């Protein structure tokens, strides 16, 4: 694994980690030399930084989890990476081994004895480097393992926590670090800076003849987007506007708070995570919004709906809804009027929205309003298989082979339903499907629920 050259500071990141925006999967270009270690820390310093940042997460809940694992190995049965490779290293709880070691040695009630009698080995730099692949390349934080564990351990959340240590040890995979750093500096992982966003909103409004309010001083509803949509699926921006306008909502986009993805969360930098979240919160507060709508994105929902208040330090002064939830609400209130789509549809559940987020039925309510013939895949809803691209995995080139193996599960699931249309409500899932479709020459394209709604709105002839 290469280390970033010592004189890296001050180099032009745009040149060093150029973006790749013309492939089915948006990320940074595949590097000729991978820089999977960041910073010029010594090995000891890396381990120390990891330990320090692990300790921050060892509260009561994490401790109870660490004390409860009985090494039954059943979590492996739930994990798509293990499913397609049968490689025991992809056992979810094994991915946490350094985190567990650190807990038992440094923090647990018997820590002194663990150190005294060396009952668990000290975490080494080599081990952390080896675990980078396990913690990043082979985990989408999908939470199937958490759903399986007989002891009820939320393994997925612990993975996110373990990434905190890895980040500060400077052990984030090349591409993930690059896009996270870019997001922190520029406001978007994929180059959708506020200026770029504003420009896009402008020409989209023009091209599609749709009103797209930007930077209103006051609005009832603040809408947000993900960079994947802004850069790859700009139709989603238009669709958002169409739906909002159709519903007669007093809404706006804001250039000081529009990016819903959170690469601080995905890469493991808690400070960056907070910074990115606060932008959205501050923007909503600034315009007095009562509701903040998150776009079709998975981890964006987890980051703000469930983790946002902790970043803010107090309950959020506005409602947070995923776009699918917002649409479902308006279906229930009979405000959203759509044409019937006489096609058979299968719905891919985005892990962070359905299983981890709790908004499983909302998309289905919307699909019901659209009058589709819903053919559920097997398994579905809370136990559905992950697309394999979440958690930052889709950005990492060296994980492609593994991700494509996983993708075969999804293809079979969808093919088996015989549905004409595959729909989801997460742009990252969507681009993962696009990449898989291209790789396998698959005949199915993944569609967006929002765009399906927007394409079938019944507008008054006014």
């Amino acid at each position, binding site marked *: 694994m290469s280390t970033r050259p010592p004189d890296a500071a001050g180099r032009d990141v745009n040149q060093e980690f150029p973006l790749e925006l013309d492939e089915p999967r948006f990320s940074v270009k595949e590097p000729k030399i991978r820089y999977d270690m960041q910073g010029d820390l010594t090995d000891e310093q890396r381990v120390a930084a990891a330990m320090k940042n692990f300790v921050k997460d060892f509260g009561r809940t994490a401790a109870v989890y660490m004390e409860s694992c009985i090494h039954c190995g059943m979590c*492996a049965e739930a994990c798509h990476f293990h499913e397609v490779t049968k490689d025991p290293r992809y056992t979810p709880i*094994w991915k946490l081994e350094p985190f567990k070691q650190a807990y038992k040695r440094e923090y647990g009630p018997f820590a002194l004895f663990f150190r005294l009698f060396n009952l668990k080995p000290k975490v080494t730099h080599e081990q952390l480097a080896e675990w980078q692949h396990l913690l990043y390349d082979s985990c989408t934080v999908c939470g199937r393992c958490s759903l399986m564990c007989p002891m009820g351990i939320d393994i997925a959340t612990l993975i996110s926590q373990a990434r905190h240590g890895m980040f500060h040890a400077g052990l984030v995979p090349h591409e993930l670090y690059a896009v996270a750093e870019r997001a922190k500096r520029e406001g978007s992982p994929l180059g959708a800076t506020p200026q770029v966003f504003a420009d896009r909103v402008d020409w989209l409004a023009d091209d599609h003849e749709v009103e797209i309010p930007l930077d209103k001083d006051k609005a009832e509803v603040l809408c947000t987007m993900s960079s994947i949509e802004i850069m790859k699926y700009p139709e989603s921006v238009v669709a958002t506007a169409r739906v909002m306008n159709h519903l007669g909502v007093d809404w706006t986009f804001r250039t000081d708070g529009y990016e819903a993805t959170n690469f601080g969360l995905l890469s493991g930098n808690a400070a960056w995570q907070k910074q990115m979240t606060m932008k959205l919160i501050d923007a909503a507060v600034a315009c007095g919004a009562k509701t903040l709508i998150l776009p079709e994105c998975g981890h964006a929902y987890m980051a703000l709906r469930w983790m946002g208040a902790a970043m*803010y330090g107090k309950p*959020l002064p506005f409602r947070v809804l995923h776009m699918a939830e917002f649409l479902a609400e308006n279906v229930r209130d009979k405000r959203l009027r759509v044409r019937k789509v006489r096609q058979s549809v299968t719905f891919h559940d985005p892990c962070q929205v359905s299983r981890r987020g709790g908004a499983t039925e909302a998309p289905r309510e919307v699909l019901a309003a659209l009058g589709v013939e819903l053919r559920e895949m097997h398994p579905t809803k809370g136990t559905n298989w992950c697309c394999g691209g979440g958690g930052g995995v889709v950005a990492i080139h060296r994980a492609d082979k593994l991700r494509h193996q996983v993708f075969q599960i999804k293809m079979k699931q969808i093919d088996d339903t015989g549905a004409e249309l595959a729909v989801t409500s997460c742009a990252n899932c969507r681009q993962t499907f696009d990449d898989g479709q291209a790789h396998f020459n698959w005949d199915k394209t993944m569609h967006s629920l929002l765009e399906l709604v927007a394409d079938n709105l019944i507008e008054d002839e006014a």
Partner: protein
Amino acid sequence: MTLLDFARGPALQWSVAIFVFGLLWRLVGVFLLRTKKDLSAPRNPAAWKGLRLIALRSWPRKEFLEGTAFGEVMGYAFHLGFLVTLFFYVPHLLFFESVFEGLIGTDFEGLFGFAWPALPTGVITFLSAVSIAALVAVLVHRITNPVKRLISNFDDYLSWFLTAAPLVTGMLAYAHAGGLRYETLLGLHILSAEALLAWFPFGKLIHAFTIFAARGSTGMIFDRRGASL
């Protein structure tokens, strides 16, 4: 002092004391760690309802069953046999009653209105045998299954041994088998149970207590969000 006297005397006192000591050390050491209040707006506000995960997680969702049925069935077979043998075999329950009485002052029936039920020895013998068979099965699985082999450590094997020993020595003592005097067999059986007691708080066996906290925590956090349980 014979082996049996030692087992029923000093060894018993020390092992019970170590059990209580270690258990509280570990549980208090974990439960006094900090927690953060969940400030997010709940989808389901009744937090305590999430505790139902403690019961729900007792059997996997059918989607996960194919690869886990063996482990689940063997696990229950072992636990059922072990717990029934431990708590419903007369010589054992007399021990627990003596502890009960010593600590609370009245006997079990005095407090609860009904006698601690006992099962016939034949039933106990059968369930003990089932338990031992299940233990052997899971050990073989642990050694041969690639996932378990990778993640298993000293704790797993020691805990297995200390759990199996009382069952096996108990059967041997009951059958007066094994080539040793009955008093020696009985002494070894009691000592093996004491070794299990003394080890209990320090290895993975603590899951007997933490399972409620772990499932409960996850249940409450997840149910609050409406996430899948």
